[in-house]
């Protein structure tokens, strides 16, 4: 094939990917805007909101808590090994609390909730779409944006910061457990140092991250479910896309917030 044609084909392929990407971002932004503008005005559905807070927040506690606990322990162990190389094994409590609260607590908590909740939302709303239950809502004087999507997004934004607080606490506790039980740290001294390096700014940035992650988790779950089509296979695709896109958005927004808050 002549090089000009090859180049042209490559450019066309690249162009269609870019157009597709912008199209997807546009549809997503429109979906998000529709939900937010509808949420401003009644009717509201407090029962739905409460149920979603329970599903997203309370029922995620075990998985988020265990993840934080194990990761905190493993982190403390690695910091101890790394720190020993420079004669700085005493940095374990400080680095653990900073690492957990600034990054691992919110990110791992977000990823675990995304795996649990974004998938479930996409599957539930997707099934409602393909079985015409969403159309049925509309014919029964109920706006699906207000009834289905809104409560999920608000609930996720409200409960994620609380979940991440728990995640942070258990992560630090995991490090403390391992350091005092296996590495020979003094419990009181460890907690003292932890408290000394635990900054309010870190906690608040952690909760801001959590709220942003919660927004993306619910948005991805609802968006992919709402636009699913093509029966069981379509719902399966929607579920996968919801989780993958939620993961990517969590990691990307985490990076952006970290750079803005900590590198400025």
């Amino acid at each position: 094939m002549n090089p000009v044609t090859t180049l042209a084909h490559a450019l066309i392929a690249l162009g269609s990917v870019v157009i597709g990407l912008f199209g997807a971002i546009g549809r997503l932004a429109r979906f998000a805007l529709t939900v937010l503008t509808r949420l401003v005005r009644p009717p509201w559905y407090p029962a739905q909101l409460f149920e979603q807070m329970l599903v997203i927040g309370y029922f995620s506690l075990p998985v988020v808590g265990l993840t934080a606990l194990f990761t905190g322990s493993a982190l403390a162990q690695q910091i101890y090994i790394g720190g020993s190389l420079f004669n700085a094994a005493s940095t374990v409590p400080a680095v653990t609390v900073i690492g957990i609260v600034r990054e691992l607590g919110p990110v791992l908590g977000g990823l675990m909730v995304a795996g649990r909740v974004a998938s479930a939302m996409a599957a539930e709303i997707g099934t409602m779409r393909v079985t015409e239950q969403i159309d049925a809502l509309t014919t029964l004087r109920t706006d699906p944006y207000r009834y289905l999507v809104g409560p999920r997004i608000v609930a996720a934004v409200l409960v994620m910061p609380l979940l991440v607080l728990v995640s942070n606490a258990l992560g630090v506790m995991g490090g403390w457990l391992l350091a005092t039980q296996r590495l020979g740290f003094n419990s009181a001294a460890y907690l003292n140092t932890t408290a000394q390096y635990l900054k309010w700014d870190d906690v608040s940035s952690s909760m801001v991250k959590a709220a942003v992650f919660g927004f993306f988790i619910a948005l991805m779950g609802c968006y992919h479910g709402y636009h699913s089509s093509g029966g069981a296979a379509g719902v399966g695709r929607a579920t996968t896309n919801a989780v993958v896109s939620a993961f990517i958005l969590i990691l990307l927004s985490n990076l952006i917030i970290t750079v803005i808050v900590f590198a400025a």
Partner: protein
Amino acid sequence: MTAKIAVAGLEKHFGPKVVLDGIDLEVAAGESMVIIGGSGTGKSVMIKCILGLIRPDAGSIRVDGQEVTGLRGAALADYQARFGMLFQGGALFDSLPVWRNVSFALGGSAASRRAAAIDNLARVGMGADVADLRPSELSGGMQKRVALARAIAARPEILFFDEPTTGLDPIMADVINDLIRTLVTDLKITALTITHDMASARKIADRVAMLYQGRIVWHGSRDVLDVSGNAFVDQFVHGRAEGPIQMQLRKL
């Protein structure tokens, strides 16, 4: 007299595929109109256009003489509240018990909504004992009846039925047909049904229209269905493979 529903020149395409190609249709108040046509002829899309669930590309839809294609937001919601719809698969909310499904569109206290639900269930021949069951605990025919009770609960002016008898045994299908006929007559509702079940069409319809390739190719009274003199209708009514309607099959 203006028609209850008047559709003119309705067009809708999805990408290059033309689904509705200029539909003209009028339904009088209190009339039961049945649209017949094969799978994929655009029946569901047409109903969803009238309901405002799908936005048509061209044409006009008037209900009580009022243009409705441009409605948005609250005006669209008010318009949609005038309709009831029986979806093909029932579309019951599987997370809610039967009585909350039936009373979904109703306001008021839980007790009054429950009473209204039981009232409407009785209209479709179901007892109060099913009120607390989940939709998944019901057979297909019972789900259809619950869905029918839900569709009439808010006493809509217009009812749509999307393939009301699909997937039911002949006896249950006839029960549903009887129910639809009785409800439409008793509640004085304008009804629009889409189906490819001729037994159902004969039972429910005052008038019948036939949809083929996105157009209405024939309409007339139910009584002249067998002597329509229209080759499309003849072939469809008698279920013949040979005729002007060609299935898109590959030659063996």
